[in-house]
């Protein structure tokens, strides 16, 4: 018996894993085509990397003169993308601005994949990847705090861990129908804000601290990195969000997207301003340090490989600024997407080509070696990007249905309900009381179903809907009753993300029907109500049909998940009284089964009239 708890949480996690696996193994033709493209790129990158490993970094265009190149440029760019999550987290959590909150999780997923790519780019860049453990204490030796690269590895891994933990925690909890624990999430999310600034600052310091390279050795570098990060990261995210809106039922508000675009405009302004300040200083003072800036913008002595890149970046960034600063173009989808593309490409060129290479050209002894990535480098880099996009795609594939409440533990098909179903539900009221009694017998001090995700999420969502909705006089009664029910059974005040999901569910689920049904509640045309009908659930709750809500809510998906999870998760809550609670859980599961058996029986042939509990105080 004592093994039940680990086993059941293991099996829960296993079903999380298998559920996730199921989610990623299902998709349309576009999804598989996209995966196939990514896999091809990964295969090509892997082949190129094998060459690089066997021959050496000589297959790249890097040489002693330009000892860092495309890989490190990409690394730098992606650190900026990873920091993007913070752009979304700050307004969402600090300013409590609703619409962005639902997006935060995608920002964090993006951060996780971007850091994965960052670490991979470092890995493909080092000469001896087999020795990377040399910088991992206790076996290795990390030159901390002197080496900035050591700092960078520490902060990047920490940032990865924080985002990974937050995302996994939220998704796992959502999957099992529970709220995430604010004790875990809030401190980590708050910590991730300075950390996002930190990873990019430290990465800037990696170059900034090198007095040998005047192009980098400028105190403007770190702020400029942050400014460009605050452009490029959200640019990618805006694409992803629009895509999500289109291909999933995930609800993302226009204002959220426009708000991000507005933030990007400010960031882009600061970015261009800092670039301008740097260019002024270099050109006006015209010291020997001007060489590097000249190599980027003008070329030196006939060496001008990078010049087209430089002006493309400037043009794109300026274009993006203009498109995002004007509200009209910011809220127009065509110009918004052009702006995103311009921002992404502009910042990518600026970091990928414009930061590292001019910093190293001419080299410290004045030699100009014109670096341009080889095909091998491009293939490896494309492979790393493909891995990142693959990770991101798969995580989205798992996260979206969980957040939408589509991917949840399911044990049995919901029977098609009819008025007979309601009878079955009403009849099972004894089990419900029993269950509650059991719970109290276990010595819980709290009310039954404490923190029930169904309860606080749906209850609050309903309350919100009623506040907004044009509901008639009957609706007022329903609302009052609903509040009573909520107060009695449930804890209001839920987390917004879950709240929004439920709200989205409500919109899909037919609120109009609710109002209609509410209006002629006395008649209760139950035969018109199907079990998967949201209105049924709402009415059931409103009238306190007790078990009626169980089945109706189960139809809702997320809330059904909550119910299901509540049944499953008793072992977790009953820690310390493992065996008892586990036994109780089985009782609960039995309860569920009986309950459906009754319903099914009722559907098959019982001709009894519905014995619906009509002692509702709203009915007078």
């Amino acid at each position: 018996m004592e093994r039940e708890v680990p086993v059941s949480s293991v099996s829960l996690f296993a079903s999380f894993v298998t559920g996730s696996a199921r989610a990623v193994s299902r998709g349309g033709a576009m999804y598989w085509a996209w995966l196939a493209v990514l896999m091809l790129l990964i295969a090509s990158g892997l082949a190129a990397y094998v060459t690089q490993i066997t021959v050496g970094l000589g297959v790249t265009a890097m040489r002693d003169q330009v000892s860092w190149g495309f890989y490190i440029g990409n690394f730098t760019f992606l650190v900026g993308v990873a920091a993007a999550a913070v752009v979304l987290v700050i307004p969402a959590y600090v300013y409590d601005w609703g619409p962005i909150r639902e997006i935060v999780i995608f920002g964090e997923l993006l951060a996780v994949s971007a850091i994965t790519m960052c670490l991979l780019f470092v890995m493909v860049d080092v000469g001896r990847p087999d020795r990377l453990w040399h910088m991992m204490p206790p076996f290795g030796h990390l030159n901390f705090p002197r080496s900035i690269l050591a700092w960078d590895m520490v902060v990047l891994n920490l940032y990865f861990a924080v985002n990974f933990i937050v995302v996994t925690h939220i998704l796992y909890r959502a999957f099992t129908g529970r709220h995430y624990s604010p004790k875990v999430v809030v401190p980590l999310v708050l910590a991730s804000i300075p950390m996002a600034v930190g990873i990019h600052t430290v990465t800037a310091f990696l170059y900034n601290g090198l007095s040998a390279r005047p192009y980098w050795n400028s105190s403007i570098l770190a702020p400029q990195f942050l400014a460009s990060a605050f452009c490029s990261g959200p640019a990618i995210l805006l694409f992803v969000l629009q895509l999500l809106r289109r291909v999933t039922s995930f609800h993302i508000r226009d204002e959220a997207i426009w708000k991000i675009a507005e933030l990007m405009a400010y960031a882009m302004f600061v970015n261009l301003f800092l670039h301008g300040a740097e260019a002024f200083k270099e050109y006006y003072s015209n010291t020997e340090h001007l060489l590097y800036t000249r190599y980027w913008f003008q070329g030196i002595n006939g060496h001008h490989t990078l010049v087209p890149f430089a002006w493309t970046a400037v043009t794109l960034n300026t274009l993006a600024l203009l498109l995002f600063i004007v509200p009209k173009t910011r809220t127009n989808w065509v110009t918004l997407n052009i702006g995103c593309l311009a921002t992404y490409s502009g910042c990518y060129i600026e970091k990928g080509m414009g930061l590292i290479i001019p910093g190293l050209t001419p080299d410290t002894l004045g030699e100009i070696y014109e670096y341009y990535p080889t095909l091998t480098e491009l293939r490896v880099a494309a492979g790393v990007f493909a891995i990142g996009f693959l990770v991101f795609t798969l995580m989205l594939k798992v996260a979206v249905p969980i957040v939408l409440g589509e991917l949840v533990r399911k044990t049995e098909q919901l029977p098609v309900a009819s008025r007979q179903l309601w009878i079955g539900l009403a009849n099972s009221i004894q089990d419900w009381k029993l269950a509650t009694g059991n719970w109290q017998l276990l010595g819980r001090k709290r009310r039954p179903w404490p923190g029930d995700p169904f309860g606080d999420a749906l209850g609050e969502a309903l309350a919100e809907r009623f506040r907004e909705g044009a509901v008639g006089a009957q609706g007022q009664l329903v609302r009052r009753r609903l509040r009573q029910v909520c107060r009695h059974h449930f804890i209001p005040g839920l987390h917004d993300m879950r709240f929004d999901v439920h709200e989205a569910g409500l919109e899909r689920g037919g609120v109009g029907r609710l109002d209609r049904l509410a209006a002629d509640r006395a008649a209760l045309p139950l035969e018109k109500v199907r079990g998967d009908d949201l209105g049924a659930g709402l009415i059931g709750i409103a009238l306190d049909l007790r078990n009626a809500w169980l089945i109706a809510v189960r139809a809702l998906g997320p809330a059904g998940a909550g119910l299901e999870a509540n049944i499953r998760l008793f072992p977790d809550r009953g820690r310390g009284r493992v065996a008892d609670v586990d036994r109780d859980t089985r009782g609960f599961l039995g309860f569920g089964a009986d309950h459906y058996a009754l319903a099914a029986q009722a559907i098959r042939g019982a001709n009894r009239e519905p014995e619906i509990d009509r002692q509702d105080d709203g009915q007078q």
Partner: protein
Amino acid sequence: MANDDTHTPDMTRRQFASVAAAAAAGFLLTACGPRRLHEIPRDRLRKAIADWERDYSQKYGKTVTVSDGGPMPGVLFAYALDLSRCNGSRRCVEACVAENNQSRDPQVQWIRVLSMNKDKGIDFSDADPYYAPAQVPEPGRFYVPTACQHCRNPPCTKVCPTGATWTEKDGIVVIDYDWCIGCRCCMAACPYGARHFNWVAPKIPAADVNPNMHYLGNRPRMRGVVEKCTWCIQRTRAGRYPACVEVCPTGARKFGNMLDPDSEIRYVLENKRVLLLKQELNTMPKFFYFYGT
């Protein structure tokens, strides 16, 4: 609860066992696994050297000795180069390549001689490292040989994430080729282009291998690591001059113990006007340039 009570110690014991196993594995790896040469115990260094000697001798078909000579007390090496004497013959480069087992294909050269315009003085942006006239010195040109400046404030050792490069007590900045991960931070940090990376596996004909090696110096490098001038640590710690000093046909190169008042290097420092490359970077090189005549 009773079940819990009997169960809990089990878990703890298991946890303890795994922690202990991890600790033991960690200890073994730390104690017996590869180790930075910076902190390697003497006995393990001797064993490593015996292994290297055996392997290298086998590989190159000649008796290779790997010295473990440490810094001598009271010695701080310094280097001086007379810019007015250097005629750009690049004999030093050849000697250095031969002495220090630098890759012949692709070519790795620790010394880089820059040909500069006398009108402009020392101006790196106008320097030509690939000068190839029929005869040196060319009219109107002068030559600035560069190599590792063995800074007293070296930017390269500071940035190394694994501590694979450091300054020895006698002032020589060395690299542990077996510990370097090849991130090339040091190359970005070095203001003198002194550090070179093995972009592919270095190639040296066995016949050309110098069998007198030092564990921190000219023993063969592998693909993917950084290398640089060690002031011929295998020679200088045995009381000899670096190969470049010995070979210089004009006697432009001076080397010695900065702490010895009677040394040649002290004479140069006390009697000549010396200059440092990129002095404004505060790297404090122990490599001094001067105009002797």
